[in-house]
């Protein structure tokens, strides 16, 4: 077990280093950092001096080391478009994205699991068929289209929910939250549904497939033969055994929720990191792009690591395999 943990940690570290190398390459070679900082009238000597001061003439490994060191201290340089430190820009927008991602992840789990169980237990009912067909739509529709359709229905036609922004926010230390005000809560509904619909459909289909698989096994038949109630069999025995893959997928999907937030935030003008990243791509703002890349990579790698470790902790079969292998 310990060897497995250490091996996974080393792997995660390696992935982060590779991503850091890509971010560094972007940062250092795509677009000249000096040109972005000074005006046209800066003399060649001044440019050379600035180059020396910033350490751009040092050997590349030294520069890379410094880049990683700075990144570890949350220093990602200055944004080309806003002329402010990148970390301040990201810090301002981080809570907005995380709140949106968490609410939609919760939404997709709380609806996806019960719907999956229902459709597995009542395979032939018309409601299950309808839900399955709808979930196919949820998987096929592009995120931005779902957002536009929701805006058209609930904001433009019915006029009941706001179509953009985050509403009023409350400041709690460094964190700003919209979940404590009425306008903030109203504002998060549409973006959260947009972002969560795909995951919900995915989780529902996954739970259904896993449940159907488990319901066929001998121990479920045996549990029924013992005369246990349907409730105990379905929820105590069957659902419990489907949760391992569901936890894995849900965990991994949290990463893609953060990535898909780029689209949702654009549709709803949600002031989060995704919108910042998109503006950076449109304006070739390399420091913001590489910082976002590093940050998202760190979140992804951390989630992957936790999921892998949880997997081993939850499922005894995997523990045995790793011990023997």
């Amino acid at each position: 077990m310990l060897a497995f943990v250490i091996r996974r940690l080393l792997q995660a570290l390696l992935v982060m280093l590779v991503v850091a190398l890509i971010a560094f390459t972007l940062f250092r070679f795509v677009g000249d950092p000096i040109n972005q900082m000074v005006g046209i009238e800066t003399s060649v000597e001044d440019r050379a001096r600035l180059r020396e001061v910033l350490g751009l003439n040092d050997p590349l490994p030294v520069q890379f080391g410094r880049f990683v060191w700075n990144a570890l201290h949350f220093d990602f340089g200055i944004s080309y478009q806003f002329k402010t430190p990148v970390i301040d820009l990201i810090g301002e927008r981080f809570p907005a994205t995380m709140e949106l991602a968490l609410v939609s992840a919760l939404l997709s789990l709380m609806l996806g699991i019960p719907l999956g169980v229902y459709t597995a237990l009542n395979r032939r009912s018309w409601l299950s068929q309808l839900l399955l067909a709808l979930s196919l739509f949820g998987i096929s529709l592009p995120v931005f289209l779902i957002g536009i359709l929701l805006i058209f229905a609930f904001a433009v036609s019915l006029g009941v929910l706001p179509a953009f922004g985050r509403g009023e926010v409350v400041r709690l230390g460094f964190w700003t939250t919209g979940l404590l005000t009425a306008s903030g809560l109203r504002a998060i509904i549409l973006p959260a549904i947009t972002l969560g619909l795909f995951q919900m459909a995915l989780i529902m289909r996954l739970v259904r497939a896993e449940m159907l698989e488990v319901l066929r096994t001998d121990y479920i038949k045996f549990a029924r033969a013992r005369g246990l109630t349907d409730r105990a069999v379905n929820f105590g025995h069957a659902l419990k055994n489907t949760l391992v893959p569901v936890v894995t997928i849900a965990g991994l999907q949290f990463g893609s929720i953060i990535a898909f937030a780029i689209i949702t935030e654009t549709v709803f003008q949600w002031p989060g990191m995704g919108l910042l990243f998109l503006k950076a791509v449109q304006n070739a703002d390399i420091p913001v792009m590489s910082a976002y890349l590093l940050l998202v990579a760190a979140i992804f790698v951390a989630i992957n690591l936790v999921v892998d470790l949880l997997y081993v902790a939850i499922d005894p079969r995997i523990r045995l395999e790793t011990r023997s292998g």
Partner: protein
Amino acid sequence: MDAPSQPVKPDARSQGRLAAFLDNDIVYSFLRSKVTVVAAAVTLVIVLAAFLSPFIAPHDPFDLRQVSLLDSHMPPAWAAEGDRRFLLGTDDQGRDVFSTILYGARISLIVGVLAVAFAAALGIVLGLTAGYVGGAVDSLIMRAADVQLTFPAILIALLIDGTVRALFGEGRNEEMVFWVLVVSIGLSSWVAYARTVRGSTLVEKNKDYVLAARLIGLHPAVILFRHVLPNVIGPVLVIATINLGIAIILEATLSFLGVGLPPTQPSLGTMISIGNKFLFSGEWWIAIFPGITLAVLVLAVNLLGDWLRDALNPKLR
């Protein structure tokens, strides 16, 4: 009865061939699944309409002589202020929405197919190499795949696009934007092909026919592409069909986000992005009709992909 047997023969033979065709497992499972038949028909209609757009579209949205700003913002023909010339209304530049959808679907399909072809080609070459050569090359390619698999495709495509933007600045022309789009979508999805092909190659490379080919001194590239490739291509086709829907969505998303095709060469995503600006003033038709087209196209392609996966999977037969 007493009809001459000579003319009947070819007819009977072709009937036999038709029967044999219908008897095939895959054709059987296709015809048995009504949803799949409908999906195939829908896909076919959209593809045909898109590629015949120069002939069937009532207007040419790229011909400036036919486009007039006076016709802009017209609602669909059945609305009170609609114009019979424009079935689904017009956009902000006076382009006929129906015609633009046909041309836009063509661009979306071309970008999608090219991106899938690029991803498949890259994945096949890397997968074959990794599986056949093994060792350090294998680890390098597969670790790169692992790292990339951690990130969603949309993020990778956006990063590539942003990098090109920074490298070339405003020097990009429309044709380059098109190819950047194809390459960034392709680069973001090669991993699935590479993994599958590598797996099958590992199995194939120890078989006798590969040993025989090596024994007679064939070049590894010849062995790989002429002998191993045909044996590992099956799953690739399934992945390609499933990925086509994803590639079309990705193109639409990038265009919607403003980093894809420009408004002068509108794909379905670009049209939805234009229409999104006018949604609040009640001009819903500019965004909603291309949106429906996109959704139907992707749904149909996905259903076809699902069916193909199940039909070719011997476990489910």
